[in-house]
Every structure is written in C-alpha cells, then in structure tokens.
C-alpha cells in the first residue's frame, strides 16, 4: 500500500470537506459547545450548592473528560459515510476505480479525510475545556488540574482510536449501503459502546482510572485492526459498480 496515494485522496476529500461549510460547522460546533458547556455546568452547580468540595472536584471533572472519547466517535460519521456513497452518488467512483489505485489506498485515504477533522476538532475543544476547568478549579485545588496523565491517555490514545473505529464503521457501512443517510445512521452507532463505557463508569461498574483506560485502549486497538481488515474485505468494486443504482 502506498501512503502517498492515500494522502492524495485524503487531501482532495479534506478540501472538499472544508468547502462544505455546513458539515464543517457541524463537526467543529459539537466539541466547542461541549467544551464551554461542561465548565459552565460545573461553575453554575458549584455556585448553587455553595461550592463543590475540593476532594470531589476531580471526580466531577473526570466524568466530563470521557466525553472526549465519545466526541471523536460521533464527528467523523457524516464525513466518512459520504466518502464512498458520495462518490457513487456523484458517479465519480468509476473513474476513481479506473486509476492505478488499490482498494486499501482508496479506503485509507477516505479514512484519513474523515479522521483528521474529527481529531483536530476534538483537540481544539479539549484545549478550551482544559483551560476553562483549570481557571475554575485552580482556586479550590491550588494547582492546575490539567494537563494530567489520564487526559493525556484520553486525548493521545483513546480519542484517536475512537475516531478510527467510527471512521472504519462508517466506511464499511458506506461501502455496503447506497445512500448517505443509511450509511451515516449505521456508522453513528459506534458512539454507543463508548457511551456504555461512560455510563458504566458513572454507575460504578468500572473505574475509569488510568489502568482501565489502558486496557480499554488495548481492546479498541485490536478492534480497529479487525475492522480495517473487514473494511477492505467488504469493499467490492464489482458490487459497487454493478448493483448500486
């Protein structure tokens, strides 16, 4: 597989994504909104209850932090779903498939184009979130809560893995389905397992500490590898060209 070929496809799709302003705003809006909303909720609830004890503050903040695993699982879905189905709708898939480019190179290029906006938007939102939390919590804790190892693990390992899994699911869905909406809906199901982990953490079934986050990361990495194999196996040129109308 030649990465240069995938990068050509990815840059073209990224430029196209930037031109589609509504998709761009949707992708950026969610993490930005949540990044301001979470600290605001914390600040408001702190004022009403006369202030959260310093000992409870890390637990509350950590509950919000896991959303930065869920967000990158949501953002790439519309972009990735459009990746194959969109080409088919525009009838541009046949000339693309006629070029000396392998299925793997095409799929990787499409995946990169969906992954990068998701991860950039997530990092942007996380940076705002961490800065606001630090400004709120510094007075109570006496130290800057962020950056820390747990958030580092979330942003550098779990968030990219969540984005990769979401992209792969969406690409698999878009290679099998013939309309963007169905592909997007199927791909969007990927945020459910992460929401499940989050809820399990909140009701005390599992602890979202650094050790468990590492275990979750390892499991996600294995699933990501399996899904990439599945995505290349389910991408059937012939079926796409002859059965899609």
């Amino acid at each position: 597989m030649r990465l240069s070929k995938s990068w050509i496809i990815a840059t073209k799709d990224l430029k196209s994504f930037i031109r589609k302003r509504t998709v761009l705003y949707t992708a950026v809006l969610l993490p930005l909104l949540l990044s301001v909303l979470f600290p605001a909720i914390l600040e408001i609830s702190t004022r009403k209850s006369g202030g959260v004890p310093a000992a409870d503050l890390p637990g509350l903040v950590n509950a919000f932090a896991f959303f930065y695993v869920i967000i990158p699982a949501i953002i790439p879905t519309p972009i990735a779903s459009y990746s194959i189905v969109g080409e088919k709708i525009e009838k541009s898939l046949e000339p693309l498939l006629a070029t000396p480019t392998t299925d793997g190179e095409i799929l990787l290029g499409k995946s990169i184009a969906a992954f990068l906006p998701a991860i950039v938007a997530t990092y942007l939102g996380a940076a705002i979130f961490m800065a606001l939390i630090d400004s709120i919590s510094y007075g109570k804790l006496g130290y800057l809560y962020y950056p820390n190892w747990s958030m580092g693990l979330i942003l550098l390992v779990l968030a990219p893995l969540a984005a990769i899994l979401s992209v792969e699911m969406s690409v698999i869905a878009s290679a099998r389905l013939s309309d963007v909406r169905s592909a997007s809906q199927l791909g969007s199901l990927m945020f459910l397992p992460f929401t499940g982990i989050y809820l399990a953490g909140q009701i005390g079934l599992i602890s979202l500490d650094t050790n468990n986050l590492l275990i979750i990361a390892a499991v996600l990495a294995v699933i990501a590898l399996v899904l990439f194999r599945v995505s290349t196996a389910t991408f059937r040129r012939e079926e796409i060209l002859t059965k899609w109308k």
Partner: protein
Amino acid sequence: MIETENLTKKFGDLTAVDSVTLRVEEGEVFGFLGPNGAGKTTTVRMLCCLISKSSGNATIGDYEIGNEADSLKIRKTIGLVPDNVGLYEDMTAYDNLDYYGKLYECTASQRKENIERFLKMLGLWDKRDVAAGAFSKGMKQKLAIARALIHDPQILFMDEPTANLDPESSKIVREFILDLKKQKKTIFLNTHNLDEAQRICDRIGILNTKLMAIGTPQELEQSVRGRTTVIRLEQVNDLILGALKKLSPGNLSSDAKKVTIDVVDPEKQNPAIVEAIVGAGGRVVSVTVVGSTLEDAYLKLVREAA
C-alpha cells in the same frame, strides 16, 4: 493491443457477455455497437479491470485481465471515459485534472503540461478555474475526456462519449477522437450512434451479448445479402407486372410509374428484369440499385439475435 478470447461475464444466471473473441490493433479505432443491455459497458469494465471476468481470456498489451498483479499496470496503461462523466463538481476543471494526474502518478511538470495541452485542445483552457459543476453537458464530457488522457495513455476506452450531447458538442468530441486517431492512440468506442461509428471507426463489432459480426463498416454493409432494384417506367401496367411475377423475384411493389424489387444479386438479376419489362412493352426510364447500409446490417443482426 487488446485481445479477448471467449470473454464471458455472468451475473448469477444472467449472461451479460457471452464468449466474445476479438482483437483490436494498435492505433485502431474500434467501435462496439449494440442495443441497451448488449454488454458493451460490461465488456469495457472487464477490460479496464473494474469488474472480474467469469471465463475466457483477455489481454491489454502484455498484461492479462484477471491477473491481480497486472490489474494496476493495465489501469496505468489505459484511459477510461465512462458513460457517466463523474467529475467532482465542486472542483475546478484544472483541479479535477490535477487530482487524476496525481493518481495516475504523473510528475508535477507532466500534469501541468498535459492539463494545458488537453484543455487547450478541447477549448476549455479559458474555463480552467471554473467549477466543473457550472459546465454544460458538452463541456463536462470534454473535461472527462481530458481526464482520461491526463497520463497520456496509449489505449482509450470511451463509453458512449457523445450520448446526450447536442450536435455541435458531438461534432467537437468526434473531431477530437479523430485527432487522437492521428496520434496513433488505440480507441475502443462504445456507441449507439451508427453514423458516428461509420465516420470514426476503422472496424466495428456488433454486440448483442454475443459478438454478432465484426469488420470494417464497408464489410458489414456488404455482409447483408440482398439489394433493392428500383425501376422507373413511363407507365406500369398489368402486362409488365405479370411478366415480372413470372421471373419469381423477391418482394415486388409498384405504383403508376415505379417498380421496386428485392434482389439477391442485382448484376445477374437486373438484365433479366429489364428484358422482361421491355418484352412486355414497357419503356424503362431509369434503373437504380439501392445498397444496404450499416444500419441495415446492424438491425438485421440485432433482430436475428433477438
């Protein structure tokens, strides 16, 4: 250059292309004529390694269709103008070509040179910074042709390149194909348009799932046996018609001053026909033999297949 032997494609129980054997020489413009659903697009897709063959063999140059290792080499060697242009409508004409130039592994200088060359040849250079979505159908078709040529392939597959184009755009595309022919490009042209095939193609294959006939346009015209002899007379009467019927010719029709007779071999049959008319007291004004056309050959073969 392009060679197939019993090339077959089945979709489940449906045979889309049945045992097609043909050879297209280097520099030749080969036309593939056939009705909708005849298997023309399927054949092109097999030859472009877009879909697999069910059986038979096919080669493009030294590379074999169906051999995974050869597929990328074949796709690098050929250009495809699909029946749907499939341009990126939000990208400019220049960017569309540049993107494909990169995918075809052209260097930056090759891309620059070829984009300028082909856009100028097709009269689109002034529109290079306009989004493809703003183009007319004809302009889009020309841009799709430029895209297929961006890596300067030796072999070009064109699937209905003038379908849905206005006469002026069709003419420009046809003239461009003839220009490519002068450059010794090998062109495999799928078309419905008999006139276009006759004007452009060196040889024509008539396909209706099976390859019904193959040859030059002239050979195909001559392959349809039978002609029509039209004899103009000063006056047609029962005596003349009676004399003609005694000759047992083919289908005979007449009006007050004209007799039309289907004949198999006009050179042998017409003297006897004229002799019979004159013998019956008729005065012959003119004798015309109407030959069969490519359209006759096409329709006859397609109807026979049906």
